[in-house]
């Protein structure tokens, strides 16, 4: 904690209400990036398509990253194994969809969504249980030891990928989109893929739900307080470990959801999906400010913008440009866009 200067006006005269300055500056980075990309891309239709793709991709990354940033914020746990939940979630969803092929192929939105909903439910339930076990067996023994956390959770990710090879085989699996979600809606010259819209809606819903929980429920307040000052939460009589397990399980379930969305986006699935996404996810939580949900949301969009714009302009440097984005942002704000106070 920072030393406070105790200078305070004497009790008599009421002190002026300090202005509560909301920090909107980082949000401007989104239009800024888009504006910089426009002349480079030149074609406005392509630019709009890429920007929409970025928003959809950003929402999916957010769904995956949100749990991880809270896990780090709350207990200082670096969990590279998060990538395993992405992969396992996607594979569970794919497996659920196999017997539901009729529902997927029917040209009826309701049946399509029912099939997807069921697959997502299975993916999230499965990754919750696996997340719970992972926390007990792998994370708990290495609380407070970063190097061991990196080693053992990366090990967990590798083992999970190998297990996927064993159970599902190493070949690439198709992950077909349901009929009604294929294709695009055309608005003027711009074609917006339907699935991207769905991904955006789901991502936004997760974001709003998360904000409601974090701001309106006691559990959420405890999570925010714990991210700031774990000791004080305990000194007020709350068992932080239980809170952490709850966040870890929820974060794992969200990774399962995000993995499912991602696989559907790619329409294919390999065991490496987790390690493929996890790099971007770590860039996101670092840029956003570890432990900050708002920062995580914003950073997800920024990273997806850079990935899509450079993916079009110079595909070979797509990942490198995101690392560059991280470096630039950290030079501007070393703690990330929205630093959590007290960390």
């Amino acid at each position, binding site marked *: 904690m920072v030393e406070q200067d105790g200078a*305070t006006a004497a*009790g008599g005269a009421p002190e002026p209400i300090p202005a*509560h300055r909301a920090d909107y500056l980082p949000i401007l980075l989104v239009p800024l990036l888009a504006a910089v990309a426009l002349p480079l891309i030149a074609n406005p239709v392509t630019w709009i398509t890429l920007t929409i793709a970025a928003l959809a991709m950003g929402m999916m990354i957010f769904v995956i990253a949100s749990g991880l940033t809270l896990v780090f914020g709350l207990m200082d746990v670096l969990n590279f194994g998060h990538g395993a939940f992405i992969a396992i979630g996607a594979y569970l969803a794919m497996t659920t969809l196999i017997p539901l092929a009729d529902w997927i192929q029917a040209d009826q939105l309701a049946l399509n969504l029912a099939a997807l909903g069921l697959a997502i439910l299975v993916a999230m339930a499965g990754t919750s249980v696996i997340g719970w076990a992972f926390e007990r067996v792998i994370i708990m023994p290495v609380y407070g030891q970063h190097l061991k956390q990196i080693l053992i959770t990366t090990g967990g990710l590798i083992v999970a990928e190998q297990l996927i090879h064993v159970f599902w085989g190493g070949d690439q699996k198709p992950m077909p989109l349901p009929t009604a979600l294929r294709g695009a809606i055309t608005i003027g010259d711009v074609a917006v893929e339907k699935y991207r819209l769905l991904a955006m809606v789901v991502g936004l819903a997760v974001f709003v739900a998360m904000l409601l929980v974090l701001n309106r429920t006691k559990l959420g307040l405890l999570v925010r*307080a714990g991210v700031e000052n774990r000791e*004080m939460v305990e000194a007020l009589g709350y068992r932080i470990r239980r809170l952490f397990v709850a966040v870890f399980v929820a974060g794992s379930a969200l990774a399962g959801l995000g993995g499912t969305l991602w696989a559907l986006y790619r329409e294919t699935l390999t065991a490496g999906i987790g390690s493929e996404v996890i790099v971007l996810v770590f860039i996101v939580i670092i840029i956003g400010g570890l432990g900050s949900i708002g920062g995580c949301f914003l950073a997800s969009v920024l990273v997806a913008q850079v990935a899509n714009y450079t993916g079009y302009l110079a595909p070979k440097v797509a990942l490198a440009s995101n690392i560059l984005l991280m470096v630039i942002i950290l030079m501007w704000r070393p703690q990330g866009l929205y630093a959590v106070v007290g960390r």
Partner: protein
Amino acid sequence: MADALLTLEGVHTHIGQYHILQGVDFAVPRGAMTVLLGRNGAGKSTTLRTIMGLWKPSRGKITFEGREIGGWATPDIARAGIGYVPETMGVFADLTVRENMILAARAGAPDAARLEWIFGFFPALKRFWTHPAGVLSGGQKQMLSIARAIIEPRPLILIDEPTKGIAPAIIDNMISAFDELKRGATTLLLVEQNFRFAEALGDHAVVMDDGRIVHRETMAALAADTATQTRLLGLSLEAHG
């Protein structure tokens, strides 16, 4: 001491390889204020943190209401009935004053009457009720930290240097608040460097040096004993009156 609410017997605490508390013995009598005094670095904050379970004692016994709490987890110690105002205040800056108080009241919503009673001493908290605690001044953060510890009645409250860097007007309100708590049968253990404050409220004085208790007497006796003050605390009433 027969009527002690809290006792420490031969308590040792290590922080990493450092042996900080080296056999701390004292008792906190029920319904009174005990002031823990001592030079900077004597081990006062470490003593409070050890009572709260934020450091684990490596040896010795800590007894609260007849139960040995040494080695308990911090949340369980808090639930046993100990409120804590840390030296760093520990307010949740990102949460509003209201949200800080909601978390402090474990049993449910903060009791409205008790809240009004607290606002009586610390009116700034009412004014900034819906503001993030991060915008409060140092003194206001201290008020919030104290308010959190007293929003529900607790048998024992540990307070670590609440007057550090705080304006005199606020200190007077703190004195009134602690005075009323004492009359309401709350036991207080206060770490304090401000001798005027300690003298105004303290019933018992315990002086620490180098991780041990080196002196115990009533506050009134210590206040009258300038020689002991100078010897143990390196201060005198002239300097702090």
